[in-house]
């Protein structure tokens, strides 16, 4: 197998639809684009098999249920876990809130939950809410100067009261990939579970979740070339079975009387109501599409472009990279500041050069405080990006610096 970036890019209609206007899409950490295979899967379902799932016996209902189950199997293969351990949610935020409720409400006052200073608000605020609801103690793993979790602080942060360590697998700001092994080992030592927020890791190749030694893993469809409104929570079957349901309603019950209800088997216990069926099928198609790629080549391509970004930024006056300076232990997400220029002004000017970036606090205000900045500008790459995209970024930034500084 080989990987041809331009052939892959040609599979994404949005780039063909740019009508001669340059589209250098470098906001993939926010939302990635969808390939034809995903769009086709969604349209095929909606036009040939649209029906509710799991209950109907008519032809369309059977087809819809099979397509939904197939999507779960495809996502499970991408994550190397059994399909019945894949819970479909609305996204990473939905997954994290599910754990904060279903697992969190089994905790007692004085139990400890550890997060880090690098987290997206979605992996911080639900735990703050749990703290206020249950009286658990929320502890923070510190961050190093180059934007990584400070694993040297594990020993003094984790105590025998720790029940859960919930951290990002890859930072949406710095691109740093978390060194999971020491975290999993330290958590095991005190009997705590580990949750990884994999939203930024999922687009960059199949995930071997069992090899990570963690207990929960969350990710989103729309960041891995799938639709919005769909995400995944993985946990081992025994953990899912031990957790009470989060939302109650249809699809998640076994029997209901006016007095009480019993729960369906996992994962359905956690999928109350009609699920986002087309979105799940789209995500399944995205996982399948990703599985067919030659990942060593894709990763090499992503890292080559990341190096090109880092080299280009080093030549722009007043530009400072936030986060790891090299390619080790990172995804292709690069944050930077430009002296004398506000991220939103930079993004606006870059937009006029056809370059889509994100500026601001990236839903990680505590991390911004830790770095001593009010916001950063972020270029986040995906497998369909090219040298051209990077060069447009660097050229536009040089222009923006001249204008704003």
């Amino acid at each position, binding site marked *: 197998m080989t990987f041809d970036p331009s052939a892959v890019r040609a599979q994404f209609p949005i780039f063909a639809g740019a009508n001669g206007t340059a589209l250098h899409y470098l906001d993939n950490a926010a939302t990635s684009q969808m390939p034809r295979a995903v769009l086709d899967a969604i349209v095929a379902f909606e036009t040939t098999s649209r029906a509710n799932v799991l209950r109907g016996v008519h032809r369309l209902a059977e087809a819809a249920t099979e397509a939904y189950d197939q999507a779960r199997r495809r996502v499970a293969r991408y994550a190397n876990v059994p399909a019945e351990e894949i819970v479909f949610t609305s996204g990473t935020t939905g997954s994290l809130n599910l754990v904060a409720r279903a697992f969190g409400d089994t905790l007692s006052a004085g139990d400890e939950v550890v997060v880090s200073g690098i987290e997206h608000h979605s992996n911080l605020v639900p735990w703050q809410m749990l703290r206020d609801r249950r009286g658990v103690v929320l502890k923070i793993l510190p961050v190093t100067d180059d934007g990584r979790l400070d694993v040297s602080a594990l020993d003094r942060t984790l105590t025998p009261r720790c029940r859960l360590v919930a951290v990002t697998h890859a930072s949406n700001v710095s691109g740093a990939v978390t060194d999971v092994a020491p975290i999993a080992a330290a958590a095991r030592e005190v009997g705590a579970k580990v949750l990884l927020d994999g939203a930024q890791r999922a687009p960059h190749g199949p995930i071997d979740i069992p090899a990570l030694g963690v207990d929960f893993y969350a990710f989103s469809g729309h960041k891995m070339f799938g639709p919005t409104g769909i995400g995944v929570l993985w946990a081992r079957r025994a953990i899912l079975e031990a957790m009470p349901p989060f939302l109650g309603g249809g699809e998640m019950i076994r029997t209901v009387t006016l007095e009480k209800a019993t729960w369906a088997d996992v994962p359905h216990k956690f999928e109350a109501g009609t699920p986002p069926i087309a979105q799940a099928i789209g995500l399944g198609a995205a996982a399948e599409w990703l599985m067919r790629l030659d990942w060593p080549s894709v990763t090499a391509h992503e890292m080559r472009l990341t190096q090109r970004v880092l080299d280009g930024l080093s030549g722009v006056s007043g530009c400072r990279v936030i986060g790891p300076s090299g390619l080790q232990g990172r995804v292709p997400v690069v944050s930077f500041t430009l002296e004398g220029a506000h991220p939103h002004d930079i993004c606006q000017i870059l937009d006029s050069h056809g370059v889509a970036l994100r500026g601001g606090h990236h839903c990680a*205000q505590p991390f911004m405080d830790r770095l001593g900045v009010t916001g950063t500008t972020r270029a986040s790459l995906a497998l369909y990006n090219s040298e051209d995209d990077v060069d447009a970024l660097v050229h536009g930034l040089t222009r923006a610096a001249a204008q704003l500084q």
Partner: protein
Amino acid sequence: MSDELYQRAILDRAKSPAHAGRLEAPDATATVDNPLCGDRVTIDLKLDGDRVADVGHHVRGCALCQASASVLAEAAIGQNAADIKAARDQLKSMLGGSDAPGRPWQELGIFTPVRRYKSRHECVLLPFDALSQALGSPKSS
């Protein structure tokens, strides 16, 4: 093209803003945040009765926000809460497509290129919200 958004008039205002810096012993102070982007504007006022006698400001924000605070700080002197509210309403209408306001707010006309960029309207309005809040007047819609 959005380069036209960053015209000389706005950039000059942003780079050397009038009345930048906090006042010593202000009669009124307010800080407002834009929750979408994390921008923050603090306005200090000296008052003469119900009228603004002096303005100081600290802006942690983009060039549009800086420039807006600068124009506002100059034009607000001698104005009362009702005047500021009226000016904010005129500015908002202008961003929606109406003509630029007349004296003493005519310089707000430099922000007409912002019209096309709805996500940036708040950047220009934020200093007005801070000043109105400092004067104790409720923020207009």
